[in-house]
């Protein structure tokens, strides 16, 4: 569609509208980004036991993520080597291996082809050559990533300066490990990068989410009035960024001696029956999550109190998962509070998500106007640097993501 090269479509302060609507660009993104870089696939807590598995996607490709008998996590293409059928259609479960339902080719937890009916029908056939295709897998602080790219830099290096923020995010276990607690999954008819931008976009919050803010009690509403509260957005390299909206909720293990807010008085009282005062304070402070979003290019955000995962389905269709997280082994009362907070904002019937989805769809629809003359503005606000306090409404995170996009698309 567009005559411009990927390197010309992204400038320092704007991107071309073709990035939202050109099917050829979308195909290149699948090849050059999702099939080349680290893509988040699961959280450790989804695979607590040997044999546990979940099915998901890396870009458009269906994969199985499982934990084998030795405890090693593997990511394998969900495709029988024989005729291509998916070998597992359940979302999650526990299995000693996988049997293709079409001709009963049988694979072990490690993906090795264990057996097949009537093997004598093949000549010069070595089962060792026909295991499931496995991806490279590495993890950081419970976050499991996979890539098709054997030459990709180690995950540790890829995450780089985002790692301390991931560590801070995981403190919302309140002294317990983090666990996933279900998810809201929805699609919107728009390009995946519209969503990617949104998790670093504080500017929209008081506008799009006015009806959510109005529904909050006074104290919570105060917390979300972060437009002038000293927040900022920082480029963390490799397309990653952090948006700090509520600076006092960056480190959940600090300020534990501050008074417990009235709205959590009942929860605190409940917790005191089984927990010390120190534990109660830690749990209560962690119950609403952190005050920041860490965006990890290209598909994960550790967003305040949940994981946001995006999956590109087509140039104008994207799937989003909002995965609830809680305290693994933590008090039921705290986890229930977290579930109710998640339901309040997230999901297709939440007080926030439907308005986000509407805004994103409007971007996709509006982008049909202007043909090749129009660009999407990304020039708002100042970046956080060593010498600059930054601005919470700065479009720094979007600029960071698009520079990474440009780097990957022009290789």
């Amino acid at each position, binding site marked *: 569609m567009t005559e411009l090269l990927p390197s010309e479509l992204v400038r320092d302060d704007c991107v071309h509208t073709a990035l939202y609507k050109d099917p050829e660009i979308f195909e290149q993104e699948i090849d050059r980004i999702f099939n080349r870089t680290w893509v988040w696939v699961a959280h450790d807590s989804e695979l607590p036991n040997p044999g546990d598995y979940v099915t998901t996607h890396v870009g458009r490709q269906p994969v199985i993520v499982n934990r084998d008998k030795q405890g090693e996590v593997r990511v394998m293409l969900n495709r029988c080597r024989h005729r291509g059928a998916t070998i597992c259609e359940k*979302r999650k479960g526990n299995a000693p291996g996988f049997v293709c339902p079409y001709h009963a080719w049988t694979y072990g937890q490690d993906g090795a082809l264990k057996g097949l009916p009537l093997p004598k029908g093949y000549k010069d056939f070595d089962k060792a050559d026909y295991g499931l295709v496995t991806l490279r897998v590495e993890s950081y602080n419970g976050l499991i990533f996979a890539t098709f790219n054997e030459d990709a830099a180690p995950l540790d290096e890829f995450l780089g300066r985002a790692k301390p923020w991931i560590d801070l995010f995981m403190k919302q276990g309140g002294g317990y490990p983090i666990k996933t*607690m*279900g*998810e*809201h*999954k*929805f*699609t*919107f008819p728009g390009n995946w990068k519209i969503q990617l931008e949104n998790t670093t976009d504080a500017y929209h919050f008081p506008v*799009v989410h*006015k*009806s*959510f803010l*109005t*529904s909050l009690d006074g104290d919570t509403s105060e917390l979300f009035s972060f437009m002038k509260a000293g927040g900022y957005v920082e480029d963390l390299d490799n397309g990653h960024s952090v948006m700090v909206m509520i600076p006092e909720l960056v480190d959940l293990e600090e300020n534990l001696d501050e008074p417990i807010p009235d709205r959590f008085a009942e929860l605190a009282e409940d917790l005191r029956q089984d927990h010390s005062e120190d534990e109660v304070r830690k749990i209560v402070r962690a119950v609403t999550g952190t005050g920041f979003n860490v965006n990890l290019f290209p598909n994960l955000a550790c967003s305040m109190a949940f994981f946001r995962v995006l999956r590109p389905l087509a140039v104008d269709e994207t*799937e*989003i998962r909002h995965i*609830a997280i809680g305290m693994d082994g933590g008090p*039921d009362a705290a*986890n*229930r509070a977290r*579930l*109710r907070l*998640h*339901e*309040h904002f997230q*999901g*297709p*019937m939440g*007080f926030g*998500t*439907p*308005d*986000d*989805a*509407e*805004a994103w*769809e409007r971007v996709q*629809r509006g982008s049909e106007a202007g043909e090749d003359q129009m660009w999407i503005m990304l020039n708002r606000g100042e970046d956080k640097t060593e010498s600059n306090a930054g601005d919470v409404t700065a479009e720094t995170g979007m600029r960071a993501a698009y520079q990474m996009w440009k780097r990957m698309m022009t290789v």
Partner: protein
Amino acid sequence: MTNILQTALGPLVEFVWMEADLLDAKRYAEWLALWADDGKYVIPIDQDTESFEDSLNFAYDDATMRDMRVRRLSSGQSMSASHAAQTVRTVSRFVRLPDSARGDARLRCAQHLVEYKFDRHRHYVANVEWTIRSDGDKFEIVEKVVRLVNSEDALAGMSYLL
């Protein structure tokens, strides 16, 4: 003494139809008045769960949350609700279930809802379970559980009530 409202299906069906009509017409204030004070409006994700409180749901609303939800939809502050999809729902295949321990009537029905917005129709199909209390000459909703057949799949933003 047996209360006629607790045994006959007909009046219960009429009540559910009336509720459906109120929701399609977005007459939310009148809808709120149908509820018992301790009523729960639940739209679960997990297909089989009965433990709604300990699960993630699309909605798990007590009276306060229902009030807030209706205020949001009616406020004019929500861009998706300000021009919400039009909905038409068909409610049928009613079956009486055993009464609750408290003696409230329970029933299950099928619901097929079609929404229309942005030149597009979307369908949501659900089994709906009701617990309905008869209080003198009127009914009130004790529990409404909307079990979408595709609750574990990707849905889309909904700025109306199921």
